[in-house]
């Protein structure tokens, strides 16, 4: 299907088109300033985002703790708890 010489003509045409392309000689200074600025901004945004997420998690935790009833004991939850007099304490087995 390929016309003989199409490869060569294609190479020539690409070469001629590419040879006409000129780049800005000052491109590096301009472009690198742009990408450094973008990189710094990106890191700043990421740092702010991390701080916001951390602060939000803190706030949610504090809110959840502040909602708890101070009279509800998690560890000693026996509803019939009564203080015991020293003479009523079972001493069997104690040294």
């Amino acid at each position: 299907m390929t016309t003989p010489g199409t490869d060569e003509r294609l190479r020539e045409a690409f070469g001629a088109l590419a040879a006409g392309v000129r780049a800005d000689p000052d491109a590096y200074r301009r472009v690198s300033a742009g990408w450094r600025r973008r990189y710094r901004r990106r890191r700043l945004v990421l740092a702010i985002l991390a701080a916001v997420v951390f602060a939000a998690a803190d706030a949610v935790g504090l809110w959840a703790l502040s909602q708890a009833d101070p009279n509800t004991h998690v560890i000693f939850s026996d509803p019939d708890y009564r203080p015991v007099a020293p003479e009523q304490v079972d001493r069997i087995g104690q040294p």
Partner: protein
Amino acid sequence: MTEIGTGLRNAAARTEPDAGREAAVAELFEIHHLPLVRLAVLLGADDAEDVVAEAFYQLYRRWPRLHSPEAAATYLRSVVVNLTRMRIRHLQVVRKHAARTGDERAHVASGEERAVLRDDQKALVDAVRALPARQREALVLRFWLDLRESEIADAMGITAGSVKVHVSRGMAALSRTLEERR
């Protein structure tokens, strides 16, 4: 080629995180900027310098994750190919929208570069630009950069078999176009 190899070895020798990256990217920019702008133009990018600048930004950002400095050239080529394809697709959508809303402006395709071409070369370049994006990319990488099929496959993110298919279909389409012009 030896210049490129030396440049990359020098780039690899620097290990300080930020200063090393700055120097290595500067060196790669010096070596690859113009060839990459040319590649973007051949692929049909209207804003070739912006595409290449974006590719270098991506390289700068991902420098710590790069396997080796030798991979940088391949990575840059791949980013330029993908970005150019995305920009062209975006422009096609914008133009389609503009045509629908009646706000269409004539597109002037890089007249400055085309001024140096002969008539037959202009016809060939126009025929290449009319090809589907994948075929155009495969032809430019194959016949301008003289890359191997595996390298083209890496740059385009496809298999070597698909590269063969794109090249042969592209060449067949070009031959048909050239035959019709005779």
